């Protein structure tokens, strides 16, 4: 958990200074899929406050966006194929585009999707794999044995 917090804080600083890729939102949504936990909501809220501060936007704005995203990802885990990338990929892509649309509407700015969305979409699969390996590192998967 501490490692995840450090990674989220680092991603927030990188996102607002040198690398305009929405890593924070990707990590939060994917963690909601990997692990349904109350800590996801707290992470979404506090990291949202930090992002609002670093991006010079009104405090609470990013918190609202991230809370909605985490809530939807956690609700999606009740679907049958929720752990499959067929569900995860479109949900994450939808929120990446939706966040930019919402912020451009709030700030009356032009919408810029290309090429950032393409780069962010490429980050989804490796981030999901890394998160899944990290979160399930203490879970032993027993081999299925057939009774003969």
């Amino acid at each position, binding site marked *: 958990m501490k490692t995840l917090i450090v990674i989220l804080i680092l991603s927030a600083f990188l996102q607002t200074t040198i690398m305009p890729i929405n890593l924070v939102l990707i990590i939060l949504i994917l963690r909601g899929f990997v692990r349904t936990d109350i800590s996801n909501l707290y992470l*979404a809220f506090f990291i949202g406050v930090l992002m609002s*501060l670093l991006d010079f936007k*009104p405090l609470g704005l990013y918190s*609202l966006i991230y809370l909605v995203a985490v809530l939807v990802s956690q609700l999606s885990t009740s679907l049958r194929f929720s752990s499959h990338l067929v569900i995860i990929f479109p949900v994450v892509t939808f929120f990446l585009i939706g966040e930019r649309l919402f912020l451009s509407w709030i700030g009356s*700015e032009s919408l810029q999707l290309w090429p950032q969305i393409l780069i962010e979409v490429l980050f989804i699969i490796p981030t999901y794999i890394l998160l899944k390996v990290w979160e399930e590192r203490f879970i032993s998967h027993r081999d299925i044995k057939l009774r003969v």
Partner: protein
Amino acid sequence: MGKAIPNLQITLTLFLISLILLGLDSLKFLSLPKTAAYFFTNPISFGVYKTRQAVSKEFEFVFQSRKSAQENKALQEQLAQILSENANLRTRLAETTAQLEQNISLDPKTYNLFALRPIGVDRYLKVDQGSNNGLKVGMPVVFKDNYIGQILNISERGANVRLLTDPDSKISAFSIGKEGNAKGLLIGQFGNELLFDKILHEEKISEGDLVYSEGTEGFLPRGLILGRVSKVIEQQTQIFKQAKVSPVFDIRDLELVFVITE
């Protein structure tokens, strides 16, 4: 509903706190804690930004050293040719100087300038000064005689600057060249290019001409350098001709920029 949405109470509480924070910030009740937070976050942002600049410069050196060796050989051949052209250039310089004397330069007696430090750049340039230092939305940001952008949104200790290359940026401009002058509208394009549009066909413009601000918008002075023409697009079937304009420098190399406060 509690079973359908896990941790419903916590979720609603956090939503409510976010809305309260949004409301309080809109009413400027959170200025003091935000200012305190910026004392910690701005130096970190600046450190990350400077680290990126330092790393880029290290890698840049490796590529440039090879390129420099090739350029050195070519330059020695060109030197002999340049000496003979020097005499012709002196004559042209006298004519260009008379033309350049019409341009207004930024005199500190005429404009109040305030220094800003860039702490990040994505779509907008982030700077480390805000409303606490008298900055307001709409103020122009410059570097020497060059126009960088306009302050778009502002916080107590920081601001976002909309760059000239942003598609929301539209500036009345004119170009001056050896063949003549041209007037038009400079529109930002995503990336590192600008489009000089609405140029009449009878007005002269060519590659290498400098483009300046007209100053008709009211928020920036006339005569600030906006870029250099890289390509002229002329089609007789179109009402106007266009030109692609490139900025004269890379904004990521700047250590300081200045805002015209008055």
